[in-house]
């Protein structure tokens, strides 16, 4: 097996910097791409819906990963930045009817700018103070959506969003929109991977590990922290724009504090500071929640617990999973995956 060589020996720097280093990697990449884009052929609509949701949330979690996982700045308001992107993108496509991609990028940029505004205090505050500042972002943004511009955003009512128009085709069904969401998600993951292995990414990591030491070494902390906030909220904005068109209607309720907590939970479960971790985390949490909804809740409801009480199992399971991961595997699924890969490579030897 070509993938099981005793080591990969690079002769050029360009080989060393590759993301996909062996033909096994390339084969897996092509296979998974084929798998993702042929999903509509063999999955029922319900699971396509799940795949779309996973695709969107991976983008948001990836952004949070860059800010929280790589730069070490806690963000409890990712859902609010997502809301900014969602409303911007939706309003642009309703009122101006720009091409979809322009709307999406505008949504991302506006969310990014809002993120920078709320990231400004990060120059002087950190830790718990910053957590509360981003919590403030969560509440202030949602209050602005509800009370600030009710004529524009519809206030507490939902805002109807037209389907995506791209190249004369209308992407309405779950199957169609998969072909918009998945390329976006893959591109954003690819960008994230590349951001964190350039100089910018190394600056982020330096700030996370010790921001004073980073500053002494000549890294402009303020600039990089704001850049990190921008990238994080840009990702949230893109996710929000896709969410708006995917749901067909958005309301402030989609972007509440609980969703921000979910993003953080996905990040923790996946493993902070790991691009694959953010992907694993989103998939794991969403599928787990779906399994709870599909199987656990009906079982408990049938056992005489009642439907209302059984639905409460979903947040309990979510919270417990996070706690269990924090206690037993704080480096998350990404770490487990690394262990698994190493074990496989070294088999049959234990080390």
């Amino acid at each position, binding site marked *: 097996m070509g993938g099981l060589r005793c080591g990969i020996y690079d002769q050029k720097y360009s080989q060393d910097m590759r993301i996909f280093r062996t033909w096994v990697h390339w084969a897996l990449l092509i296979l998974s791409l084929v798998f993702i884009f042929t999903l509509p052929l063999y999955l029922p609509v319900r699971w396509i819906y799940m795949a779309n949701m996973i695709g969107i949330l991976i983008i948001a979690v990836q952004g949070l990963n860059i800010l*929280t996982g790589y730069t*070490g700045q*806690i963000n*409890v308001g990712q859902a609010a930045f997502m809301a900014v992107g969602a409303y911007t993108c939706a309003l642009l496509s309703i009122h101006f009817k720009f091409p979809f991609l322009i709307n999406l990028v505008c949504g991302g940029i506006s969310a990014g700018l809002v993120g920078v505004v*709320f990231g*400004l*205090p990060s120059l*002087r*505050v950190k*830790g*718990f*103070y910053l*957590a*509360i*500042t981003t*919590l*403030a*972002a969560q*509440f*202030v943004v949602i*209050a602005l959506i*509800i*009370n600030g511009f009710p004529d524009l955003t519809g206030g507490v009512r939902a805002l109807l969003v037209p389907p995506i128009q791209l190249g004369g085709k209308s992407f309405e069904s779950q199957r169609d929109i998969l072909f918009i969401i998945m390329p976006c998600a893959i591109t954003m993951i690819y960008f994230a991977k590349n951001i964190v292995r350039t100089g910018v990414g190394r600056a982020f990591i330096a700030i996370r590990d*010790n921001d*004073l*030491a980073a500053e*002494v070494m000549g890294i402009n902390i303020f600039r990089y922290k704001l850049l990190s906030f921008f990238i994080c909220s840009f990702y949230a904005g893109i996710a929000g724009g896709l969410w708006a068109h995917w749901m067909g209607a958005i309301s402030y309720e989609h972007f509440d504090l*609980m969703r921000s*907590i979910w993003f*953080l*939970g996905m990040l*923790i479960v996946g493993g*902070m500071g790991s691009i694959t971790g953010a992907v694993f985390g989103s998939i794991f949490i969403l599928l787990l929640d779906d399994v709870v909804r599909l199987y656990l809740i009906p079982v408990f409801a049938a056992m005489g617990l*009642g439907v*209302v*009480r059984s*639905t*409460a*199992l*979903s*947040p*309990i*399971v*979510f*919270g*417990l999973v*996070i*706690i269990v991961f*924090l*206690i037993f595997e*704080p480096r998350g699924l990404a770490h487990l995956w690394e262990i698994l890969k190493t074990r496989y490579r070294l088999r049959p030897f234990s080390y």
Partner: protein
Amino acid sequence: MGTFWQFVVTGLLVGAIYALIALSVVLIFKATAVFNFAVGEMMMLGGMFFWSFYIMLKINIFGSLVLASLCAVTLGMAIQRIVLRPLIGQPILTSVMVTLALVSVFKGLDGLIWKNMPCGFPDLLPRGGWKLGDVHISMDLFWAFLISIFLIALLSLLYQRSRIGLEMRATAESHQLATAKGLNINRIFTVTWILAGLISMVCAILLGVRIGVGPEMANYGLKAFPVVILGGLDSIRGAVVAGLIIGVLEQMVGGYINPCWMEVSPYAILLIFMFFRPHGLFGMERIERI
């Protein structure tokens, strides 16, 4: 001018309750270096405990207070023992995340046990009120204010004058040094969480008289965070002063600008304030070295 004083008085009365909630967060932070995001949910559960004993099981008020306190103590101990003890000394994000996870678990517990129902509360405190010039002071709020101030004073006394308070302050200073001096910091953490559970329950009852207990109560926990940060994370005095300030400001915003903004005004004020005094009013300014 009458409305102005009305806002000030109502704000101060409500602010004392906020201060008490914030105090529980500050106490936990000082002793254990954990920021308790789940304070609102602890209040919710505490209020529901009391409601279950007092209304559902129709036990008299003292009996139900004692039973609810027992439940709150158990809750505090359980949090400390099961969830936080394995996580001592972990980075900040872990302690943020673990309490956020507790938020989710407690919300679920409320649904599982009490079906997320908002529950009406009895006339526990005397109703009515009296007029002082143009200012109307409602009786229940006044009593809640008195009880809060009394408890705040009691807690400060406990913290400053008693043996366990001294141990808590030592632990707050440095976990390692406290351990080296022979303090059992696990015991102190447990005591702190028990105190937090009890304070949350009392706050829930005081607020519950006015607004009822239930899932809504968790939102009042969210009001404690700007108070804590405004006052300075590690300052008891700060929590009290900031509680009163936030209470008054909230009433002013609600009365003069727009009631819609009342809920978020503490956070908006906090955001602006952060630029000028990032460590809060009375918080300790940390000077960092590499």
